[in-house]
């Protein structure tokens, strides 16, 4: 990139990209994709999976029928069997995915995957094409997000292929504390990385349609100039080598519309985050390999750590607002699954490629944050019911993907319903006289039978389906010689055991919360879409307020169970105890010091924690230079001569009439009363108005020593 002329504010976006070093575009390269019969293979695999799952569910449901006292003879029992079958089927799918993943990994990878297809391909011969790397952000930790992006930039520079990539920070931040920091950091990174004309920043004035709207805005403006777009999340990290390989895979396979990587969780510090990170790294490979094996070229897009074929995506993946009622009206909240379905509808393939490594993301530090995220996702996934039912010409696999997403959240109310019906069934059995003729018009009496040992066997069998994949993942780690990377044999085993205990403790808490979110979503309660909290610990009072209702319900339920029948009380304990302990569980799991204590004893250790990872080290270097408070950030924007110019360059201009008068009044107030005299809205208006920024800068430096800005300058000089 060579010449960049500085224009006035209204033409900020008219910088010219130097085309002299324009990389080879996709059209200049004639790919010769390897012939693959993946559709046949995947169809066979899906048939096998369906047979196994349906067969297993039929056996489980039959067993359940025999366990129930009236063997499904009453309405409650029929409902119980139906709910059991749905949930068992759901668990069974996960179980067989893990088994498949294990088998594939033991046999050296999936022969149908893209990476295996080009295992011995001379990668260097594949030319790259112009690629945009975009990071949409919204009120995120600037150090973390832009530090991460800087690490990706440096990593890509190390590959020697930087010329083919441009970076975009796409901000939707509204609070000036965030966006002024983002702008200042962007400028600093441009200088540090010598990334003028390579690293861009844009903040939308109107942040419509969440993240997908932000990306669509980018595509409408400059998408035409890029063959591929890599979408990163605010916490995403990807190594340069991985990015280069992804572009080359896309070049080789022109039918691939989206290539999704399977991000590894990193940078966890709290106990919960470290548990999740460990689970992701130990169990994740099995599940993702299994999932990819059944999805083939009809995988889903997770919205980040993925590469998309830009023009095709733009042509086919516009998200129309939903036209139904309530939840099913308005913008689509969870865009990624839908975009995958739309690009596949246009004839392109979507692949999940677990063999693409060095792709990372972070996990929420506390259960509170995780549940806040789930609340958004629950609404987004439930919206997909509309598309599942009414969208035209979608592939069956993608309708199933929608169903899968819906089930992720619907499973919770179904489980709760199952528990309620179980309580009702027990209540009827204990309190009411035995009904020997539960079925009308039947001449034959039915003697209710209750065999606790059968029920126990069924419960153990179901738990086996849930926990066996974890054991299998442990075996996978051991036989693949990775145990040292996870802290050694003993620590690995203890960690898996502890993770199972923690996940058991968390399951009922998540179930209650998800049920609430599903109900809220179905009744279309407005959701606040905000950035993740990736640092704070949960306080006791907040935990008690959040988890108190669940704890009370659990105690009341257990008390009722004890009164009803002590045996039923014992059955209720695996659910009631975690709910009763929900507040302390939430608080303790969010604690960083406890997480670090476990780390000290090599528990929940992951490979990235044991070995130095250059990308992660680079990403953890701080990029913020001023303290992150509204006051400090705004003062710096006004006083610092260079930053003031940067903010002016990014600001808008030419307000007339009443607005200009109002801005002048705000400037006057700012000069006399300082930041404290401004509301956040006024601060936003001033910081996004070029002339106001210039005026404030000039007047502040000329201020009398006894005035607000005079004192501020003196403080600055003495600091």
């Amino acid at each position, binding site marked *: 990139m060579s010449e960049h002329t500085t224009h006035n504010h209204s033409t900020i976006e008219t910088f010219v990209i130097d085309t002299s070093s324009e990389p080879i575009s996709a059209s200049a390269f004639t790919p010769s994709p390897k012939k693959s019969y993946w559709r046949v293979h995947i169809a066979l695999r899906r048939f096998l999976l369906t047979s196994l799952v349906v067969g297993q569910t039929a056996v489980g449901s039959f067993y359940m029928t025999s366990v129930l006292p009236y063997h499904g003879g009453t309405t409650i029992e029929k409902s119980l069997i139906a709910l059991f079958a749905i949930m068992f089927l759901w668990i069974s799918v996960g179980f067989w995915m893990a088994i498949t993943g294990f088998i594939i990994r033991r046999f050296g990878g999936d022969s149908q995957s893209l990476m295996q297809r080009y295992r011995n391909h001379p990668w260097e011969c594949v030319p790259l094409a112009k690629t945009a790397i975009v990071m949409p952000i919204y009120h995120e930790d600037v150090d973390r997000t832009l530090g991460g992006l800087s690490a990706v930039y440096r990593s890509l520079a190390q590959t020697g292929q930087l010329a083919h990539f441009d970076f975009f920070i796409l901000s939707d931040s509204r609070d000036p504390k965030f966006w002024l920091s983002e702008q200042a950091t962007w400028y600093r990174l441009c200088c540090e990385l010598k990334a*003028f004309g390579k690293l861009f920043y844009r903040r939308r004035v109107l942040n419509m349609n969440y993240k997908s709207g932000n990306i669509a805005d980018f595509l409408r403006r400059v998408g035409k100039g890029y063959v591929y777009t890599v979408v990163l999340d605010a916490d995403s990290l990807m190594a340069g080598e991985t990015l280069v390989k992804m572009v080359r895979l896309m070049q080789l396979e022109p039918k691939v519309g989206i290539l999704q990587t399977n991000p590894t969780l990193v940078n966890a510090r709290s106990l919960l985050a470290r548990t999740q990170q460990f689970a992701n790294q130990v169990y994740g490979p099995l599940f993702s390999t299994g999932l990819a094996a059944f999805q083939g070229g009809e995988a889903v897009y997770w919205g980040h750590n993925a590469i998309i074929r830009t023009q095709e995506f733009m042509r086919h993946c516009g998200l129309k607002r939903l036209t139904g009622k309530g939840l099913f009206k308005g913008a689509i909240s969870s865009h990624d699954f839908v975009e995958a379905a739309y690009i596949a509808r246009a004839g392109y393939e979507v692949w999940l490629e677990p063999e693409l490594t060095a792709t990372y993301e972070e996990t929420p530090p506390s259960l509170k944050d995780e549940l806040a995220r789930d609340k958004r996702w629950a609404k987004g996934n439930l919206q997909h019911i509309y598309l599942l039912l009414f969208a035209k010409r979608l592939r069956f696999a993608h309708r199933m993907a929608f169903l899968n997403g819906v089930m992720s959240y619907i499973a919770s109310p179904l489980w709760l319903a199952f528990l309620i019906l179980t309580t009702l069934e027990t209540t009827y059995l204990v309190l009411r006289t035995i009904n020997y003729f539960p079925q009308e018009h039947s001449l034959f009496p039915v003697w209710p039978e209750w065999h606790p040992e059968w029920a126990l066997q069924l419960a153990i069998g179901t738990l086996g389906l849930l926990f066996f994949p974890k054991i299998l993942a442990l075996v996978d780690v051991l036989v693949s010689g990775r145990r040292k990377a996870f802290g050694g044999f003993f620590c690995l085993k203890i960690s898996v055991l502890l993770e199972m205990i923690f996940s058991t403790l968390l399951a009922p808490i998540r179930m209650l919360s998800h049920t609430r979110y599903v109900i809220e979503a179905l009744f279309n309660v407005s959701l606040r879409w905000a950035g993740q909290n990736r640092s704070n610990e949960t306080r006791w009072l907040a935990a008690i307020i959040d988890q108190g209702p669940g704890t009370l319900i659990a105690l009341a339920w257990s008390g009722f169970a004890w009164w009803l029948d002590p045996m039923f009380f014992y059955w209720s304990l695996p659910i009631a105890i975690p709910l009763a302990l929900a507040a302390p569980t939430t608080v303790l799991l969010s604690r960083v010091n406890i997480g670090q204590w476990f780390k000290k004893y090599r528990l929940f250790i992951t490979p990235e924690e044991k070995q130095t990872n250059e990308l992660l080290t680079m990403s953890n270097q701080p990029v913020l230079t001023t303290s992150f408070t509204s006051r400090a950030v705004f003062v710096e924007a006004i006083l610092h001569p260079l930053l003031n110019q940067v903010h002016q360059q990014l600001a808008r201009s030419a307000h007339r009439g009443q607005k200009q008068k109002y801005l002048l009044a705000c400037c006057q107030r700012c000069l006399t009363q300082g930041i404290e005299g401004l509301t956040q809205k006024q601060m936003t208006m001033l910081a996004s108005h070029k002339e106001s920024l210039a005026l404030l800068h000039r007047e502040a430096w000329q201020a009398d020593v006894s005035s607000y800005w005079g*004192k501020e300058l003196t403080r600055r000089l003495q600091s």
Partner: protein
Amino acid sequence: MSSTSLHADHVGGAVMALSQPENSAIPLENSRLSNARTPDNIGGPDNVQVIVEMALLRAFEYLHSSGVVINKAVSLTVLRLIDELLSADHPDLLAVMMQKLPERITLPHPQLPPSFPLIQRASIGYDQR
């Protein structure tokens, strides 16, 4: 961009630098302005001294933050400007000095990075078949 602010002792150092061959590495204890007054304790007979100190500090901080290297020539120019304004008994020395500073010392025009590439408008398709 530099995140380092100029301290009071820089000004004292710059003043001393005028009588030294090198203008760097001025020790803190040599600075007579290292205990500069705050605006809260301005008053009385010291007022002129405080204003001059502030003017020097402000000028050097502004120049430094703008990317100007504070050398002997720059320091002399600033001092001369303050001298002129003091001689003229200007009532609003700080403001006038900051107005005149860019006229006396050429501030570097930093090259700012382009915030966004050339717009190439396109639309998003909705696959309406």
